[in-house]
């Protein structure tokens, strides 16, 4: 689904060019989940922007669904850190936005969004504005908006980082359900080790800036809701923790 080969991104503010990513390569198969983890400022979000086609100024090869990445791919959905909901649109209109922009006829999009809001338990909140919702509810609205597009690739930037532990775990399980149902490929960026190990059937570890791939873990346990309670889960987490803390000089996987 995704092939990233020797990706390099240099930001060019006047005077001091900053290398955000350097020689990043990994693959994500169709229908897989991939968690990208690394310290703050390592270029995780930049990587997501590249995959979304929003950042075009990069070197190297990035292929999404067999084609070089380009902006406006209609089957890619992106959920940003603060969810990107418009404060002036209520839940329903926010969830409709992608379809409205794509000029889907009103009755079609309203039917589709109604269904999704019901599924995510948001229908009762359809008239409320983002300012009236809790963090977890807002995140679900953002997910609803993304799902309305029937994406085959879902990109998420720190999707659950600002939520309390219980909400976070509930939403992570929600996401697994959605993944199981839709079979879409999910790439999520996170700084939480537990989240990466719980959700990513592959975990890509980035080094501090400029971000390089330190390791890619195949993570067979992910995808099962009970994985979190498996003793093996803790082992993977602590191995990953060591990798992040000390082993940043290693170059390829375990």
């Amino acid at each position: 689904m995704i092939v990233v080969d020797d990706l390099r991104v240099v930001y060019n503010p006047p005077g001091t060019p900053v290398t955000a990513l350097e020689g990043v390569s990994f693959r994500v198969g169709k229908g897989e989940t991939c968690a990208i983890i690394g310290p703050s400022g390592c270029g995780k979000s930049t990587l997501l922007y590249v995959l979304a086609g929003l950042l075009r100024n990069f070197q190297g090869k990035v292929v999404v669904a067999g084609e070089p990445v380009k902006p406006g791919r209609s089957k890619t959905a992106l959920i940003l850190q603060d969810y990107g909901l418009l404060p002036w649109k209520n839940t329903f209109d926010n969830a409709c936005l992608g379809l409205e922009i794509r000029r889907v006829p009103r009755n079609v999009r309203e039917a589709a969004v109604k269904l999704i809001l019901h599924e995510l338990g948001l229908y009762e909140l359809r008239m409320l504005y983002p300012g009236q919702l809790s963090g977890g509810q807002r995140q679900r609205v953002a997910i609803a908006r993304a799902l309305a597009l029937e994406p085959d690739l879902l990109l998420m930037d720190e999707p659950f980082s600002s939520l309390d532990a219980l909400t976070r775990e509930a939403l992570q399980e929600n996401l697994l359900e959605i993944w199981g149902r839709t079979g879409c490929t999910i790439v999520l960026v996170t700084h939480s080790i537990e989240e990466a190990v719980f959700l990513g059937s592959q975990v890509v570890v980035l080094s501090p800036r400029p971000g390089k791939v330190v390791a890619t873990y195949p993570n067979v346990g992910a995808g099962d809701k009970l994985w979190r309670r498996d003793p093996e889960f803790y082992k993977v987490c602590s191995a990953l923790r060591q990798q992040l803390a000390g082993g940043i000089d290693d170059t390829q996987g375990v």
Partner: protein
Amino acid sequence: MIRRGFEAVIAVAALFLLWALVASTLKLEALSSPWAAFRVFLRDLNGPLGWHLLVSTYRVLAGIVLSVLTAVPFGFFLGRNPTADRFVTPFIYLLYPVPKIVLLPVLIALLGIGDTTKIFLITLILFFQILLPVRDGVRYVPAALIDSVISLGANTRAIYRHVIWPAVLPDILTALRVASGTAIAVLFFAETISSQEGLGYYIFDALSSWAYPEMYAGIIAMGLLGFLIYTVLDWLERRLCAWKHI
């Protein structure tokens, strides 16, 4: 809504009482009682006063519409194009502080004494008051909002429609509220100098013929005009920016 109406009635009654109190204490011919003024107001509203009120309202509304139609697109443009903004800002900062009323003689010389001059003057005042907040509002729309809407497939038009316009609309309405007071004041001035129509003319005409109750009736009409504009702007704000009031 009913409560708001009730509060407005209380405010009007309190103002009238205060006025009545001062008038009956001072007993000056030039300070008519509110009852006399109000009698004339009601009598003339169906006649000359109503007409003058209509003319002034038309001028203010035309100025508001024209200034929004010109300042908003221009503010969008400047907010999204930093280079253009750098060149244009010095012009704005040179022109903005000049009290526009000093341009009245210039405008009369160039455009004559008709409606054009007055509407142009009001438009000019409101234009600057709207332009700057719109430009700044556009500039500070969070980039993440725009990015996430682009990722949904939005083109430039969709970005303006779904993100930038609703983001700056509250600023526009606030600017209009602040500026329309000035606009009415300037309109009054312009109408006293170069007009046969409008409330400014009516009030000054009453003064020069010592018709004091008429003069106050004109002032009441002026107050009414301002009140109507504020009420409409408030209503628009509550309707269009409901998300601000949660």
